[in-house]
C-alpha cells in the first residue's frame, strides 16, 4: 500500500515538473525544472529495482545534462541580466497532438490484457549482470556507442568552435535578421 502511495507521489512530481518544463515562461526555469523531472525519474528507477540506473541517471542527467542545458541557456545571451522568455506558440496544435498520442497509446495500454498484474519478484538484476551484459553479450554495441560518443564530442567542438577572423566561416550569416520583438534591449 505504501509503495503505491509512494509511486503516486513520485509520478505526480514527475508529471508536474514535466508540465513546468514545457510551460515555464522563463527558459532558465524550464531547464531547472527538467532537473527535477530527471531526479523524480531516478526515484522511479529506484522503485523499479534498477538502483544502478538510478545512480547513473542522477550522475549523468541531473549532474550533466541539466547543467549543460543551463550552460546552453546562459551562453546564448547577448546581455547579462535579461530574463529570457520562452515563447509558446500554437498551443491548440500542441494540445491536440499530445492528446491524440496520449489517447491512442493509453487506449492501447488499457485494452491490452495482462498488464494489471502486481509487481512480480523476478531475480534481482545485479550490477554484475549489467557489466557482463555490457562487455560480453553486447560488446559490439558497447564499442559502437563509445565510438559514437567520441564522434559526437569531436563534432560538437567542430560545430561550436570560434573561427579565426581570416578563416572563411562556414554557414556564416551576418546579423541582419534580428527581428522586431526579440529580447534585445538597447543599452
Amino acid at each position, binding site marked *: 500500500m505504501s509503495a503505491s502511495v509512494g509511486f503516486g507521489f513520485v509520478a505526480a512530481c514527475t508529471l508536474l515538473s514535466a508540465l513546468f518544463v514545457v510551460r515555464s515562461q522563463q527558459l532558465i526555469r524550464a531547464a531547472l525544472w527538467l532537473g527535477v523531472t530527471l531526479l523524480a525519474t531516478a526515484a522511479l528507477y529506484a522503485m523499479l529495482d534498477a538502483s544502478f540506473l538510478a545512480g547513473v541517471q542522477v550522475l549523468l542527467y541531473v549532474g550533466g545534462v541539466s547543467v549543460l542545458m543551463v550552460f546552453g541557456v546562459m551562453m546564448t545571451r547577448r546581455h547579462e541580466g535579461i530574463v529570457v522568455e520562452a515563447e509558446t506558440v500554437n498551443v491548440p496544435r500542441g494540445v491536440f497532438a499530445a492528446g491524440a498520442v496520449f489517447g491512442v497509446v493509453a487506449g492501447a*495500454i488499457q485494452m491490452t490484457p495482462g498488464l494489471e498484474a502486481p509487481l512480480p519478484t523476478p531475480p534481482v538484476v545485479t550490477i554484475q549482470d549489467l557489466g557482463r551484459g555490457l562487455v560480453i553479450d553486447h560488446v559490439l554495441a558497447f564499442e559502437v556507442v563509445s565510438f559514437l560518443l567520441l564522434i559526437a564530442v569531436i563534432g560538437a567542438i567542430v560545430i561550436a568552435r570560434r573561427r579565426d577572423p581570416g578563416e572563411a566561416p562556414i554557414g556564416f550569416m551576418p546579423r541582419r535578421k534580428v527581428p522586431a520583438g526579440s529580447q534585445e534591449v538597447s543599452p
Partner: protein
Amino acid sequence: MTLSHCLLLATALFSVGIYGLLTRRQVVAILLSVELMANAANLVFVTFSRFKGGAQGQIFALFSLALTVAEVAVGLALVILLYRTHGDTRVDLASEMKS
C-alpha cells in the same frame, strides 16, 4: 504500482514532451522537450526490465542514456552556432540553407 501504471506514466511524459516540441520556439526549450521524451522511453525500458525479468532492458536503457547525452552535446553546439550566426536562438530563424 502495476505495469499499466508505469506505462501510462511514461505515455503521459512522452505526450508532455510532444506538446513542448510543438509549441516552443527556442531551440533550447525544444531540446528540453526532446529530453523529456527520451526520458519516457527510458522509463519504459526499465519498467519492462523489471516486470519481465532479465537485465536486457536496463542494458538497453544504458545505451539509450549514452545516445541522449551525445545528442544533447551536438544539439547545444548547434544552438551556439545558431546564436553566433543569427544572434538569436529561435528555430524559425534557421529556415534557409544558404545565407
